[in-house]
C-alpha cells in the first residue's frame, strides 16, 4: 500500500463551459510504494510538479479520477479522513523556514504531532527524536526559531514534519539557495531517512542531486507524466535527456568530453566518483610494469 493515482486529471478552476477547462495535470497513472523509494520529480517550471505532489497528501483533490493514499481513497468530492493522509505523507514546501511561527524551536516542532492527536509528552518525545535525526543542536531547541541561521531554520522546519512520523516524505525543491556543503548535508539526511525505510520524493531541477540520490525519476511535461523510469535508464539514454532538456550531471559531462576528445570507448553512465574513476582508469590508465 502506498500512493496510487488512477486516471487523474486536475484543474484549479472549472469554467461554466467545461470544455474550456485548462488542466494542470492530465492522464496521470502512478504507483508509489510507502517504503524504500527515492524518487526525483523533474520538469520545467509550470509542468505540474508541485500540483502533483499536492495531490499526494490531499492538499489538492483530483478533478477526475482518484488518488488512493495508504488505503484512503480521495476523489473530487468523497468524504475521506484527511488527517491520516496528512500525517503519513509529510510535505515540506520550498523555503520551509518561512513557515515557522512558534516562540521556541521545540514548540514549533511539536505543533504538527500535537495537531495529529499525539499527547504533549509523545509530541515532545517525537520532537526530540526528530531534532536528533536532522542533527539540530539541543541547545537551539529552546531558542526562538527566528534567531537561528537559515540552515538551522530549515532543519527545524523539517523536524516539524518528521515529528509526526510520516511514512512518506515529499520535499519541494529542498536544495534551492543552499551552499554546496549545506546541500550535501541535507541530501545525506534524506538518504538516511530513506535507509530507515521511508519513501522520499523530491521535486527538483538539480540533476546532480537526481543522479546521485534518486533511484527512480519521473519527468513531467505539460501536465503529463512523460517518463517514469529507473535513474540508470534515464541517464543511459542521451536522447531522452536532450528531448526533455535535462541537465547532464557534471561527472557525465566530463566522461563525455573524454569520449569525444580521445575517441575512446568509455561508459559515460557513471554517477558516483568511484565508479567514474574506475571507468577513466580502465580506459586511460596504465599500470606499473
Amino acid at each position: 500500500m502506498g500512493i496510487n493515482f488512477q486516471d487523474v486529471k486536475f484543474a484549479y478552476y472549472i469554467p461554466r463551459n467545461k470544455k474550456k477547462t485548462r488542466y494542470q495535470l492530465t492522464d496521470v497513472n502512478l504507483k508509489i510504494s510507502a517504503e524504500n523509494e527515492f524518487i526525483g520529480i523533474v520538469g520545467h517550471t509550470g509542468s505540474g510538479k508541485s500540483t502533483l505532489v499536492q495531490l499526494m497528501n490531499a492538499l489538492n483533490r483530483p478533478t477526475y479520477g482518484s488518488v488512493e493514499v495508504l488505503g484512503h481513497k480521495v476523489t473530487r468530492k468523497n468524504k475521506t479522513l484527511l488527517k491520516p493522509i496528512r500525517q503519513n505523507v509529510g510535505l515540506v514546501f520550498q523555503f520551509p523556514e518561512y513557515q515557522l511561527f512558534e516562540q521556541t524551536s521545540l514548540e514549533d516542532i511539536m505543533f504538527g504531532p500535537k495537531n495529529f492527536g499525539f499527547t504533549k509528552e509523545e509530541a515532545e518525545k517525537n520532537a526530540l527524536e526528530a531534532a536528533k535525526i536532522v542533527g539540530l543542536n539541543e541547545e537551539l531547541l529552546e531558542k526562538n526559531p527566528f534567531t537561528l541561521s537559515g540552515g538551522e531554520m530549515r532543519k527545524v522546519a523539517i523536524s516539524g514534519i518528521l515529528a509526526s512520523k510520516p511514512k512518506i516524505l515529499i520535499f519541494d525543491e529542498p536544495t534551492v539557495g543552499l551552499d554546496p556543503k549545506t546541500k550535501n548535508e541535507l541530501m545525506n539526511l534524506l538518504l538516511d531517512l530513506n535507509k530507515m525505510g521511508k519513501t522520499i520524493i523530491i521535486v527538483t531541477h538539480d540533476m546532480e542531486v537526481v543522479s546521485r540520490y534518486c533511484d527512480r525519476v519521473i519527468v513531467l511535461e505539460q501536465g503529463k507524466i512523460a517518463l517514469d523510469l529507473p535513474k540508470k535508464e534515464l541517464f543511459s539514454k542521451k536522447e531522452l535527456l536532450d528531448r526533455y532538456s535535462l541537465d547532464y550531471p557534471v561527472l557525465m559531462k566530463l566522461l563525455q568530453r573524454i569520449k569525444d576528445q580521445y575517441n575512446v570507448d568509455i561508459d559515460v553512465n557513471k554517477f558516483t566518483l568511484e565508479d567514474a574513476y574506475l571507468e577513466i582508469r580502465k580506459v586511460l590508465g596504465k599500470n606499473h610494469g
Partner: protein
Amino acid sequence: MGIIEIKNLTFSYEKNKKIIDNLNLSIEKGSYVVILGHNGSGKSTLAKLIVGLLEAQKGEIYIEGTKLSIDSIDDLRQRIGIVFQNPDSQFVGITVKDDIAFGLENRNVPYEQMKGKVLEVAKLVGMENHLEKNPEELSGGEKQRVALAGVLVYDPEIVILDEATSMLDPKGVFEVNQAIQQFKHKKTIIAITHNLEEALYADRVIVLNQGKVVLDDIPKRAFNEEEILKAANLDILESMKLIDLVKEDQDLSNKKEIEEILWELTFKM
C-alpha cells in the same frame, strides 16, 4: 585603479559579529568576476554595500574613483545595477514594457527615447516578443531576463548578479546565461553564486569566508586551492576529486598524464 576599489571595509548587523571584516578588493573595468562563498560568508552583504543599500561602519568604497557616500550615492547608483535572487520579488510594472521602463521614468527620460531604449535592451536579453505581457505570466528565466533588462536600460557600468540564477530551472539558467553573454566584457559583471560551474569561465574567482577575501585568482589556479576552498566550506570541483583519486592510486604509472587530461577538459567549454 579598478572601477571598484574597496578599502578596509567592515560591516556588522550586530555588535561583535563582523559580516565583512576589513575587506580589500579591486575590480577591473570590463571584467567578469565571480564571488563564491557559503551561506552567511558575507557575499550578499558585500553586494548591498557596493550598491549603497547598506552603509559600512568602517572603510571606503570607490566607484570609478568617486567615494561612495550619502552625497555621491544618487549619482553612483546610475552606474550600478543589481539583479536579485528571487524572480518574483522584483517587479513593479503591470507589463514587461512598463517594468523595464521604470528605471528610466525615474530618471525623467523623454518618452520617445525611452521607447527605443526599452526595445533595445529587451532585444538584447531576448524578450522583445513579450513586452505587452504581465510579468506574472512569465517563466522564472523570462522574469530574470526582464529584471536584467530593467537594469541594462539605464546603461550602468557595473552589473551585479546576486544569485540571479539560483532559483531557476536549467532552461532558465541557460537563457539568463545567454543574455549575460551579450554584454560580457562590455560591462563590469560581478556574479555572486554557489555554483562552481558558473565560475569556471569567469575572468577571476573571489572566495569569501568570514567576511574576508581568502582566495582571488583566475579559475584554473583558484580551483586548485583545495585546502582554502574546503576551509571556506565550499565544495571542490568533481574533476578535482577525481584527480585526488588519481594521486592516491598506487598502481597507476601515467598519473601526470591523466591529471592533466582531467584538468584541461574541466575548463573546456
